[in-house]
């Protein structure tokens, strides 16, 4: 076990995956010699050569188109999109191609080897175009898997699982935590399951659900609430698609209350899907409306970022409101 930050954990996962299987390739803008603008792919080109870790031209639709072709051919591409805000030029290749490749061909062909890594989220003074959390756009797309890790240990295990999963996986990395989140990470080659949520703290009064960097926020809010005598069950969804309805529903059947938090705007955010599903599954057990604490229905701001973000105080207030309902 070593103490790593989230970037190091990701770098280690890529290193292990490339060492274990020569079909694994890493590429994207500045990914090669430089090791990526955040340095997630540091030293991979040195170790595995220019053919397996390289810079691409600056064209996201090309990066993912190229990756789709490579995956169809039987390789295991791990493509990086430099910021999640810049994934949209590749939207067609992801939503119309990656997601539908296997289905439309009746499983003659598939791009299951594909993994797309991309840093997402706010809190770094990035403004409109270096802060977005676009997971919900992809969660409406059958055929994709969408994964978001909350810390270095999770990041390594989930990324290794994503790379080896026989389906195209979008892997959103909470860039605010790249250096800020550190923790013990086993040196071994391990995988954590996709599609499974994790209860990281048990509680009885309310279920708090989030993913990625937002986990930290709901954990802090849970602490504030505990001080007021409110017992929170804290759940990390981990996989946005497919998502673990059972674990969430079971928790809500127990606590009777649910609060979901994400940075993305409220309207059309993934909390809506969860709320809609859970109100159906747990209708008779709900003691208060399912609560959503999210970004505003606006583009991501800069100077007033702190005001925009769903922070622990907002979550704390929403917990109290839910319990007092």
């Amino acid at each position: 076990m070593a103490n790593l930050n989230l970037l190091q954990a990701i770098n280690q996962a890529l290193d292990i995956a490339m060492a274990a299987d020569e079909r694994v390739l890493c590429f994207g803008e500045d990914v090669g010699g430089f090791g990526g603008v955040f340095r997630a792919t540091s030293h991979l080109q040195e170790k595995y050569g220019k053919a397996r870790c390289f810079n691409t031209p600056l064209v996201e639709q090309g990066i993912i188109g190229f990756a789709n072709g490579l995956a169809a051919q039987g390789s295991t591409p791990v493509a990086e999109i430099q910021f999640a805000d810049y994934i949209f030029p590749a939207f067609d290749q992801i939503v119309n191609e990656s997601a539908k490749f296997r289905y439309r061909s009746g499983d003659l062909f598939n791009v299951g080897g594909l993994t797309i890594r991309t840093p997402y989220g706010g809190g770094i003074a990035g403004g409109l175009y270096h802060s977005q959390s676009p997971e919900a756009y992809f969660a409406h797309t059958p055929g994709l898997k969408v994964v978001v890790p909350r810390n270095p240990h999770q990041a390594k295990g989930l990324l290794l699982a994503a790379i080896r999963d026989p389906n195209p996986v979008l892997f959103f990395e909470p860039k605010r935590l790249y250096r800020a989140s550190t923790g013990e990470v086993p040196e071994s080659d391990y995988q954590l399951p996709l599609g499974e949520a994790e209860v990281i703290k048990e509680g009885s009064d309310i279920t708090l659900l989030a993913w990625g960097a937002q986990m930290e926020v709901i954990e802090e809010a849970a602490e504030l609430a505990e001080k007021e005598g409110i017992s929170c069950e804290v759940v990390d969804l981990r996989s946005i698609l497919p998502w673990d309805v059972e674990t969430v529903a079971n928790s809500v059947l127990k606590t009777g209350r649910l609060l979901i938090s994400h940075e993305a705007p409220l309207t059309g955010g993934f909390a809506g899907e969860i709320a809609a599903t859970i109100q159906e599954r747990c209708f008779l057990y709900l003691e208060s409306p399912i609560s959503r604490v999210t970004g505003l229905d606006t583009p991501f701001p800069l100077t007033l970022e702190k005001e925009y973000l769903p922070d622990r105080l907002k979550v704390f207030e929403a917990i109290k409101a839910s319990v007092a309902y």
Partner: protein
Amino acid sequence: MTTTTSSLVHSPAFLKGDEFSIDTFALLKQDGSLFEGAAPPDLDRDKALRIYHAMVFTRVLDERMLAAQRQGRLSFYMQCTGEEAAVIGSAAALDDEDMIMAQYREQGALAYRGFSCDEFMNQMFGNERDYGKGRQMPIHYGSAKLNYMTISSPLATQIPQATGYAYGQKLAGDGHCTITYFGEGAASEGDFHAALNMATVHKVPVIFFCRNNGYAISTPAVEQFAADGVAPRAFGYKMRVIRVDGNDVLAVYQATMEARRLAVEHNQPVLIEAMTYRLAAHSSSDDPSGYRSKKEEEAWREKDPILRLRRWLESCDWWSDEEEKALQERLRREVLETMKAAQKRPAPPLDSLVTDVYDTPTPQLNEQLAKLEAHIRLYPEAYPKSASRRSAEGSAGAPGAENGQGGR
């Protein structure tokens, strides 16, 4: 770091694009004789006849299936008519293990590879034997064993995919390449630019084969681009390029052979622009009389690529009127009979709705399927394709031939 080594000049001269010209490579005249100075490609009788058969099959299939669409047996169809030489001549120049990533109008290449009439029909009728499990519209063929990637309707997406596929082939070192076909219209998409640029940067064994057939649905090439065709774009990527008479199967064959050599032996991607003409409507939903003249069509009909090859075969004494008649008859019969059989086959099973979304259906999908099954049990008469299948009989019918709307 900057790569140019260009020399300095001191007056501001703008280049106009007429500093060079792009010739058209052609071997065969319409009368079946070779141009003066033209040498025939290295093509033996067997291969020439394999090409010719595929061309005639494609033509017969197209005629018959368009008629079937008109009769309401099929919801949709797209013809290759007029472009058989471009598509089949190029496919014939490849190794059968090379990957083909086509747009949609390249059924001839698939026929050349040996896709059977039955396989074509099952796809078009989306029945239980369709490899695509009845999920895509007619003509969206695919074959893993024939290295023909399943067609995808969104245009140009296959072009950067071909670059990626070929990169994988290069790493695998198996000596194969990828060819991708696309129309001059699709070449306007951003994916085209991405694909060609990445191919030269990463030195990938891929052949970009542009069928410049003059139209993208109703949009003529002059409203698609201002340049002299698609070929000059290659200069922007420092890619090898050749323009070829797309109705001349020998020229297409030879150009593609040469392109394949550059790709496979030197990892040199190549752009081929085949000048041809879409003789038929864009698709069964289209009526070209709204946007082009009969006269223009007639002029091109006289350049029929199949007739041109037939005349050459005859001049080689490789083909006769009797053989032609027999072939036509056999193919017509085969198409008709196979169609009838395919049309009768039942639809794919209900669970094909949820399989292949992922490698295995998620719990949610299984739940949705179970709910749907229960619902169909409640209203069997409302869902004849799947309900009747439960009682192990009934026909698939034409997938929704009912709508007469334009546009696909």
